[in-house]
């Protein structure tokens, strides 16, 4: 396999640093919005519910950041020449899974849970935004590619 001009192990570390910075910036930005929420004076339970629902809506982004973290591990393994080894396949699967979980949260779970908990609405709602659907499908493709790559590697190893 020809060497890439990009130092992938170094890129892996850079991506991890970027993820940490993005996560901290995201939490900081969203914490600032806490003050704008509709709190009820004296009702701790209702206020806790409001805060929990607020953080619930941020879960998809959390999973996307986890996917980027898992992807940075994959970059490091590619850089070390680990072609579809068990660790790399696990990294690809984790990346794909996190993308899918984030997408499912954004498309179905949060649109359903939020009105259920805040307005006691019953029933399934979904929000098929292009970004979330795309991310989810890319996650599925990554997961399937990892499995396929593992199967191909196992077959190749049967050639001496």
């Amino acid at each position, binding site marked *: 396999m020809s060497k890439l001009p990009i130092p992938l192990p170094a890129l892996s570390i850079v991506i991890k640093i970027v993820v940490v910075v993005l996560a901290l910036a995201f939490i900081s930005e969203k914490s600032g919005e806490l003050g704008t929420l509709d709190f009820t004076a004296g009702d701790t339970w209702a206020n806790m519910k409001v805060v929990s629902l607020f953080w619930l809506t941020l879960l998809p982004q959390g999973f996307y950041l986890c996917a980027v973290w898992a992807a940075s591990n994959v970059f490091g393994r590619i850089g070390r020449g680990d072609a579809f080894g068990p660790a790399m396949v696990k990294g690809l699967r984790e990346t794909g899974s996190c993308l899918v979980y984030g997408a499912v949260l954004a498309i179905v779970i949060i649109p359903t849970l939020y009105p259920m908990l805040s307005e006691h609405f019953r029933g399934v709602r979904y929000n098929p935004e292009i970004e979330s659907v795309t991310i989810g499908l890319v996650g599925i493709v990554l997961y399937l590619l990892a499995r396929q790559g593992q199967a191909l590697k196992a*077959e190749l190893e*049967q*050639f*001496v």
Partner: protein
Amino acid sequence: MPVRVTLDVMLARRKIRAKDLAAQVGISETQMSLLRTGKVKGMRFDTLSKLCLLLDCQPGDIMEYDADQGDLTKGED
């Protein structure tokens, strides 16, 4: 009928140990054992050329094949 590996015959003729041959060819002892017992799916040409060089033989000296019409349809599943 698959191709049969007759590597053991050449190893005995040349009085070389399988372990030493594996090390010189650059494959593991496990892979050498699988190769000798015919449990591999295939062999790379560079492995075959190394074997032939080290054993001073031709590919036909370490493999045998008995014609079988059934081989035409195998591997299509």
